[in-house]
């Protein structure tokens, strides 16, 4: 689901969707649906709310296509703004709205347990991916290099040490500190 198969930029896709090209909005959706679902799952902790909010978010985006102004920012920022609105209306009302879906003619998708699990798994995987990437980016460079060499490229500690010009003990320490920082970040997310 990572490749949406469309080389066009988000802005171009939205312009084509506004002109009525369904497939353009489909590509925009495929590109961002996991991020939006992950956003909603991280804040509601309930797969059925996350699914409903995701559908409502994209329906609202579709309904507001003509109000998207590329001069005011990237489409993804606009989309997250809509997602935040949907979420705050859930918090105000205690229920997910379906106004945007009704307006553009979407029907509510009823989800069985297996479908809810799919939503949860997809969104959680996305969350972990984002958190890991952010956690990774936040590491000090020496730890990040050590983690790349040892964990991703599977070098042994002697090789990590010589590549970085440090002793093996220091290399071990860097890998272990880097990994535990990332672990702490993930743990922080799931307990929040």
């Amino acid at each position: 689901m990572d490749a949406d198969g469309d080389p066009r930029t988000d802005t171009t896709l939205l312009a084509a969707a506004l002109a009525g090209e369904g497939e353009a909005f489909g590509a925009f959706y495929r590109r961002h649906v996991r991020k939006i679902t992950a956003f909603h799952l991280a804040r509601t902790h309930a797969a059925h709310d996350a699914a409903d909010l995701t559908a409502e978010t994209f329906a609202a985006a579709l309904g507001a296509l003509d109000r998207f102004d590329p001069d005011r920012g990237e489409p993804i920022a606009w989309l997250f703004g809509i997602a935040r609105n949907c979420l705050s209306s859930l918090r105000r009302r205690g229920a997910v709205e379906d106004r945007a879906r009704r307006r553009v003619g979407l029907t509510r998708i009823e989800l069985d347990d297996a479908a809810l699990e799919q939503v949860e798994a997809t969104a959680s995987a996305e969350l972990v991916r984002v958190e890991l990437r952010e956690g990774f980016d936040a590491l000090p460079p020496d730890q990040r290099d050590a983690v790349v060499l040892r964990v991703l490229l599977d070098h042994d500690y002697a090789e990590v040490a010589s590549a970085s010009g440090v002793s093996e003990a220091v290399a071990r320490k860097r890998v272990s500190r880097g990994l535990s920082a990332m672990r702490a970040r993930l743990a922080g997310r799931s307990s929040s």
Partner: protein
Amino acid sequence: MTDFFADLEQQLIGATAERAHRVRRARARRSATLATVLLAVVAGGAGLAAALAGSDGDHGAPAAPTPTAAPHTIAIAPPTRPGTFTVAVLNGTRVPGLARGVANVLQNRNYKIGTVTNAAEQGRAATTVEYAPGHRAEATEVAAAITAPTTTLRPIDHATRTIAGRLAKVVVLVGSDQAASPQP
């Protein structure tokens, strides 16, 4: 199991095309209304001018009949509700299952589906939507729902009615253009 992500994608793709249709129709309605208003203003102005000319001029002659703006209203058909009328779907091609596919699309949009079978002839290229007397608005919505590129509307004919049955208010005669468009 329901595939939430795929279902939502299909709905959004369909709704994107429908939205553009709707916006275009609304624009057409707005410009039609504007034209009517302009017409009324022009006609009213002419009437006023004629009346003034009549009162200023020859008092013996009866004033020219004042042209009044025709009470021209634009009939905006209220949106119909899917499910309140029956739609029959007839396959006008040799592609097996094409009528069933179109019927499924409509059913997903809550239309009530009647007869689904083969049409009298099977060499149809363009999809046509036929309507029973008084059901043109419903036919327009059905045509929008199946988003066929070249759909035309026309009153139902006797042969179609015989196959589709008396209950059907709208009959879709599926042409090979529906084979080209993706079926959700």
